[in-house]
Structures are given as C-alpha cells and as structure tokens.
C-alpha cells in the first residue's frame, strides 16, 4: 500500500466513470458515472496530501511549526470543496432530468433535443 497504488485505483475509477458518462443513454446513469469520477479525483487529492511533502513544509525545513505543518491537509480541504460542488451538481442535474422527463416522457440524453436547430 503506497502512493502509486492509490493513484492507480483512482485512474481506473476515473476511466470507468468516463466510459460510463459517455457510453450510456440514460441521464441518471450519466450522473452516477460523474459521481464516480468526482470520487476518483477526491481519492487522488487525499492520497497526494497523505504521501507527498507539501511545498510550504519543504521550504520551512526540519524545524517547521504548526503553520507550515497544516498544509499536510490541503488535499483533504480540497476534497471537502469538491464534495460540496458535487452535491450542488447532482441536485441541479437531477432537477434538469426530472424537468426533461416532464416535457419529453424520457430520461435518455439522446431525446433531449429541444435546443437543436
């Protein structure tokens, strides 16, 4: 178990999400695949902040205080913001899916053609 293992798992998860988002016609499956991609990115951010020396800590040297050491958790703070944005995205995405379903009686992304032409 090391940094590379986590990064490889994140890469595989991101590819699976990418494949699912582009190959499915159902809008809800597309949204679920996007959630998998968000999670892969979160895993990368946390793994990098766990295993890699942050720039501020490297500059501060061996006698670093708490001010420099806190940057060890930058990846976790980033992940919190990504989760916030993902929550907003899924709420709006599902609202759009339901709004399209009301007018078209379909959740397929290929049927939402109102804005074509």
């Amino acid at each position: 178990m090391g940094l590379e293992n986590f990064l490889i798992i994140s890469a595989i998860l991101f590819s699976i999400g990418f494949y699912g988002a582009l190959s499915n016609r159902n809008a809800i499956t597309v949204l679920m695949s996007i959630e998998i991609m968000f999670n892969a990115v979160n895993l990368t951010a946390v793994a990098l902040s766990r295993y890699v020396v942050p720039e501020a800590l490297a500059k501060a040297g061996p006698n670093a205080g708490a001010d420099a050491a806190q940057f060890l958790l930058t990846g976790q703070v980033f992940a919190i913001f990504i989760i916030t944005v993902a929550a907003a995205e899924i709420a709006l995405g599902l609202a759009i899916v339901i709004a399209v379903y009301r007018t078209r009686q379909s959740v397929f992304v290929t049927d939402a053609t109102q804005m074509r032409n």
Partner: protein
Amino acid sequence: MIGQGTEASLLVDIVFWVLAVSAIVSAFAVVQIRDLFRAALFLIMTLLSIAGLFILLRAEFLAAVQVLIYVGAISVLIIFAILMTGDVEEGSPSHSMKIPVAILSTLFGALAIFVSVSTDWNLLETAIAAGQVSGDAVTGVYSNTIPVIASMLIRDFVLAFEVASVLLLAAVIGALALIREG
C-alpha cells in the same frame, strides 16, 4: 504508514486490497448493469469502499463526510429520481459510440497510470527519514486532523468557503425553480 507500527501492515494491506477491488468492481457494475436501481445500489457500494480508503489514508473526517453526504444524501436523491422517472425495467441502453469511448477511456487510464508510476514523487516518508521534515510535526497534525481542517477552512480558504455557501444556496434555488410545476 507514518505513525503506525509495522505489525499492523499485513492486515492494513488486506483491507486495502479488499476495498480497492470492491470499489472498482462496483464502479464497473454501475456503468454496465442495465437495471438502474441495482446500479444505484452498486454506486453506494463504491462510495462506501472509497470512504474506507479515506480511513486508510488517515482522513477520518472526510470518510464521515463521504458517508453522510454521498451515501446518505446523494444516493437517496438518485434513487428518488430513478423511482420518479419510471422506466426502471427499460434500464440504461448504450449507444453506438460504445467501442470508441471504451478505447478512449482505456487510453486515458493507461496514460494516468503511466504518469503516476513514472513521476518521481517527493515522498513524506523519505523526507522524514532524511531529516528534511520533522516527523513530530507530521504526527502532530495527523493525531487530530479536525481542528487543523477547521482552521484552514476559516483562515487560508475563507473565500472559497464563503463562495461554496453561496453556490449551495444558488443550487437550492435553481433546483426548486426547475422542478416547480408550470
């Protein structure tokens, strides 16, 4: 792992591989299974496995947030949307671009794996062993992460923190406006 004895490493490795395999297999099931409801259940499995991986990365707060927001809120929202839009048995057919997309995503994954393996990372463990970074500061931060995350949110990332609250408000109002009848 930093701050842990080596005697636990075999058990930690087993847990890691179980979580990793379950995350990847469930994620693959999400994109392949035609039944939407089962796909949503496999999505919950993926999210729980990733929460376990967060615990292995010493991000306990993030694991709790993951379970509360993803497993608790987002999954319920997705299942509600599946039930409201009907056609559960019709499922999720794929379209004609399936094979090019599969090749593209495989290439992307291979590229990402190549970059992450071949990059020369400045690892924390080697920096501590070389005396460039004090191990006490690292164990101090990881012994209690929540106050550190809180102070970073309020001090270093305060602008992003405030913007996130505005974003959530905008999302709530936007979702209500979209869903409203008429």
